[in-house]
């Protein structure tokens, strides 16, 4: 009988605490996989290094500049995609969190 009484409390705890934490953990793992897949940390770490590990005399400066240009483009594209992903994730988390309030708000809307 006690479980029936505690069911609404269990729902509230699940909906506003456990589930959002679970979703955020899942998304953080997804973000890590995304970053690894799109090599963003690697591009940032090797931003000033010469392209293709070029260390022959006279070519180092050119390789560095070329690498910076190419990596800048890739970093920019990666960042746009990453921001889009984070945006979608934020919308999902927020929608999930606000769903009970949203349902009441919909009900109270004047037709």
């Amino acid at each position, binding site marked *: *009988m*006690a*479980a*029936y009484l*505690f*069911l609404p409390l*269990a*729902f509230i705890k*699940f*909906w506003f605490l*456990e*589930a959002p934490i*679970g979703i955020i953990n899942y998304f953080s793992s997804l973000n890590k996989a995304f970053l690894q897949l799109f090599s963003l940390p690697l591009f940032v770490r090797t931003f000033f290094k010469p392209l293709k590990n070029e260390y022959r005399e006279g070519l180092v400066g050119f390789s560095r500049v070329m690498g910076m240009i190419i990596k800048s483009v890739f970093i920019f594209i990666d960042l746009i995609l990453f921001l889009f992903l984070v945006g979608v994730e934020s919308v999902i988390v927020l929608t999930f969190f606000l*769903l*009970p309030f*949203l*349902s*009441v708000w*919909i*009900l109270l*809307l004047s*037709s």
Partner: protein
Amino acid sequence: MIEQYARIYVLYRSALIRTVRLLVLFFVLVLLYSDVAAGLFPRVSLFLLLWFFMIEVFFHFKISRMHPRASVTTVNKDTLKDAYTFPVLVAFASAHSVKDFLHQLAKLQQVRLLLEKAGISADELSVPTENDEQLGLYAVELVKRMKGTYVTSMDMMASHLLQTEEKTKLLFSKKIKSEELLQLLFWVRSHYAEE
């Protein structure tokens, strides 16, 4: 408390409640369609649909995935059920006898795999003389031997097979030694580690 949640879950999954849930969903969808068709904003139907969805999510991701309160090392004879996993408790809650309990267990995929690998069909599970407490105590000992944490449905079935072996000679007839069954149990447990 987790036992009571298992009972609620059994009720929630019963044929009657399933039918009611389906009818509610159908009614809400019809209401939603009629509101939209009449050019009205579907306030009530959307509200009901959202709550239907939330309750389904709650049962699927919270109630059905409850974890045991205690490990096998901390339970005693009186608190055995605290170390049982949710599928075991659900089988307990939906069974009227030990025989029924074993047949409920035999419906689970992981138990079916254990029985299949041992070459035993669910019909061959004989009526046991032991009660559920003896079964549980033996299962706890098995889990301790396996260095496991909780008593799973597979442990319960293996416990039953080993405990009744003297009377039934079921394992003997299948040319399986108890050590081999334990190895099988160890393998199935690692295969279904999520339980």
